[in-house]
């Protein structure tokens, strides 16, 4: 089956609000515009209320309570508010347990935010690829969204077939998913995001996050691939056979990575992950 056929077949598509679906589209411009963000959030009282709750949690360190979108953006900045509302907007759907992958409730959501924060760190602090940090965050956040769909295709039989291929043929999880189901969670996630009119650059990064493109120049998929590896190495690896991930050979060369560089990056990513706990605790 193709990714589209799988999406057509499954019963439950992720429940994500219209506002949340519009958020990635705000990154179509070279920079995130404050007015666009405020205007979008004004249409969604539920998401705004959740965002304000996070802003008013102890973790943000604000002295005065925040009561409006404008005030939140002014005090915490566009990127921070965008990160919070994006994580919350997709969080409801992503917080579901995925029994097919043996992922507990909140497991996918936590890993998705971790990967988003790691991607943002790699873009902002390490300047990989020159991507704007909110774009890196969003692609990282959405990279595994296809698992919400593919989870519904994982019967005991298909799951066992996939695990056998991983154990006996040394396939990666996506390679085994393609072998058994015809499409992998990256293809399915990209197809879903395309339906939601998410910008192509994010759709492509999600589609290629296990086959990152580094030539002729580094694409967003390479950043997400690296962020996903970093999330795993920092302890965010939910589900069975979570390390059945093939690291692409040309990635290290293209990003000038060696053992020491990777370990330094991991220390940096690990330091940035306090944000994940703050967000999840307050949400």
């Amino acid at each position, binding site marked *: 089956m193709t990714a589209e056929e799988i999406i057509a077949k499954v019963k439950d598509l992720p429940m994500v609000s219209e506002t949340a679906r519009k958020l990635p589209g705000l990154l179509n411009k070279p920079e995130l515009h404050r007015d666009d963000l405020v205007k979008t959030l004004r249409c969604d009282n539920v998401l705004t209320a959740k965002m304000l709750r996070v802003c008013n949690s102890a973790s943000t360190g604000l002295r005065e309570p925040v009561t409006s979108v404008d005030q939140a953006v002014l005090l915490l900045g566009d990127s921070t508010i965008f990160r919070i509302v994006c994580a919350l907007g997709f969080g409801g759907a992503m917080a579901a347990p995925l029994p097919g*992958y*043996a*992922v*507990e409730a909140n497991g996918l959501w936590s890993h998705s935010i971790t990967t988003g924060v790691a991607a943002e760190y790699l873009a902002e602090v390490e300047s990989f690829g020159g991507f704007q940090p909110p774009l890196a965050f969003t692609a990282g956040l959405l990279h595994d969204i296809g698992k919400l769909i593919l989870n519904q295709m994982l019967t005991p039989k298909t799951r066992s077939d996939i695990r056998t291929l*991983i154990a006996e043929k*040394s396939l*990666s999880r996506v390679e085994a998913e393609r072998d058994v189901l015809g499409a992998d969670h990256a293809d399915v996630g990209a197809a879903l995001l395309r339906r939601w009119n998410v910008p192509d650059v994010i759709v492509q990064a999600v589609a290629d996050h296990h086959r990152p493109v580094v030539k002729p120049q580094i694409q967003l998929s390479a950043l997400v691939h690296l962020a996903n*590896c970093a999330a*795993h*190495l*920092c*302890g*965010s*690896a*939910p*589900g*069975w*056979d*979570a*390390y*059945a*991930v*093939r*690291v692409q*050979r040309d990635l*290290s060369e293209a990003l000038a*990575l*060696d*053992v*020491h560089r*990777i*370990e*330094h990056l*991991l*220390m940096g990513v*690990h330091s940035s992950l306090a944000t994940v706990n703050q967000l999840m605790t307050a949400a």
Partner: protein
Amino acid sequence: MIPQRKKSLIVGVADMIASNDSTAELVTYSLGSCLGIMVYDPVAKVGGLLHAMLPDSTIDSHKAQTRPFMFIDTGAPHLFRTIYGLGAIKDRLLIRVAGGAEFLDTDGFFNIGARNIKTLQSLLQRNGYHVDAAAVGGRCSRTVRLDVSSGKCTIQSPGENPQTL
């Protein structure tokens, strides 16, 4: 009588807890490439659990000071010193190790799990310790629990039943 549920003391990434509280269990979640080192003295009934992320602290001397449990080479000595401080004795120690999962990475740059295991093995060997049980490598993440009163150590991967280590 209904057995009382153990109090879980959760060890985060780059952290360590040692305890002689018989009502407690030490827990660390989702060990992937990271290494969990569980040490236990069955006579003193003292246990410790380290969740280390990276092998070698020489890459960052500041972090070695401020976050010693991030690294095997600084975290493990801290772990041993701490449980000795609680009354454990070297000759009685049970040492169990879990984690060190590996990606499919032909270059090996990302295989920190294997380097974590190698660093720990060499550190233990140099200091006259041996590992009593280990569940390392592979593609799965592991959650481990160490019961402080009994020393029982259980290990569980997602979708699998818990096993005694």
